[in-house]
């Protein structure tokens, strides 16, 4: 579903073949760019997604204590 920062960090310690871990450097860079893009794209639109009157909403967000 996603390569969101996950696959390049998995199980590096297990591999007997260091080259396997070394080769995907370009892939890693590409993934890193994708990740930045994913977050950047959300940041681009975030002010449209955030609650209107965000400041007021968050100040008024008071919950009763629970367990």
């Amino acid at each position, binding site marked *: 579903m*996603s390569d969101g920062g996950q696959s390049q960090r998995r199980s590096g310690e297990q591999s007997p073949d260091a080259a396997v871990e070394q080769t995907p450097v370009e892939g890693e860079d590409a993934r890193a760019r994708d990740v930045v893009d994913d977050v950047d794209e959300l940041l681009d639109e975030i002010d449209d997604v955030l609650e209107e009157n965000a400041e007021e909403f968050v100040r008024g967000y008071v919950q009763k204590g*629970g*367990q």
Partner: protein
Amino acid sequence: MSSRKFVGVETEYGIAVDGPSPVNPVLASSMVVGAYRAAGQEDVRWDHTDESPQRDARSGVVPAPGEPMIDDELGLANTVLTNGARFYVDHAHPEYATPECANARDLVVWDRAGELILADAAERAAASLPAGSRVLIHKNNTDGKGAAYGTHENYLLPRSVPFGRLTRQLLPFFVSRPLYTGAGRIGSELDRGVGFQLTQRADFFEVEVGLETTLKRPLMNTRDEPHADPNRYRRLHVINGDANLCEVATFLKVGTMLLLLDAIEDDALSAVPVLAEPVAAFHAVSHDLTGRVDLPLEAGGSITPLALQRWYLDAVLRYVKDRDQALEPVEEEVLTRWEAVLDTAEEDPRHLAGQVDWATKLELLEGYRQRHGLGWDSDRVKMVDLQYHDVRPDRGLYHRLAARGRVERLVDNAEVAAAVHSPPEDTRAWFRGECIRRFRSQVVAAGWDALVLDTGRDNLQRVPMMEPGRGTRAQVGGLLDAVDDVAALLDRLRG
């Protein structure tokens, strides 16, 4: 050889009504729970007969059935769903308790189903409020203004596992697991110098061990109410965790516990590091984003949360290698992922963004702050923090990130959508959920360990379900398929 474990997670969701007239949160929560039913359908009531939440695991008293409980007295919505879950109002919050699950992956599926149920129920509830009203639901654990509400994990254990051993061997684990279980928050109840911390809940914990859940919250809760045969089982009620949106975080939160509890049951852990001050350590771990804060040990010296987690992982790896039980595929995945997140955290815990909530949210918050030159005290930044937890797929910031592929997923949407209506097939939740789906008008009440049925021909009949592993589809599917109503079902059950 360890016993088969079951797990369920209860979450009190945050609730806010935005609209022309204020609605008190107890009423709003009740409206949300009550709205979640098909037109003309009756709720299946909760059966409280076997509940005794004041029973203390330390006292050695064997729980007896028959002690009634309090919360239906206010007439608040309290119901059981066809997926085997309980959906009700608790402490001014709508609460969803997953059905009993037999592994960590299933728990993720039915926990995520709860998010869909809450989103749907909130929309339905808003329709019955004055025009312009909205009901917003957040899967979080604090309002950032001094109130906390819980996400509790429940694990079924044999009663023979000594509670003292559980406490001793679990406390250092609870203290260190926020590295992957923390949902993150801006600010602190305890230290004004904290801009952002790993957990929503840590600041609200005050004691090591205790029965309370709303005051003087303990790291190790002693509620002894197994919702199963009390002579055979205890329930470990873990109240120190956060509500997670990241599937990897939920998966690891319960998956590591299930394996660790096997190891503790088999008494396979030796020389567990003992922290000098577990509660202070819990706060320190949460307030530190490096995983390398020094936590004083009782024997002198110190240990970091990363080193503690590595100690537990190594101990569990040794245990599963030595034991005479093959690992289930889900358990294999837990171990692989546990090791992977610790490897990543040893590089830099912030690289866990996309897998665990605190790091995913922190990355978003830092990006937003940098763009707009804002500090941690900015209300707009705090709104980003809050809205990360919004359950609406189109507005919740976690869900926006997941839709973009920024967050790793473990289960697919179709599975989660099916789990809104269907119970797990391999626990007693299957019998509960299927009876409600098939014979709703004849199921008067349901609880974790019983169904109350109305055959229409004599007194109400209570069917006990004291074994969480019994009532599976394999065991009773054919039986349910062969009957048309609960009278026939009871006849067959009595054989």
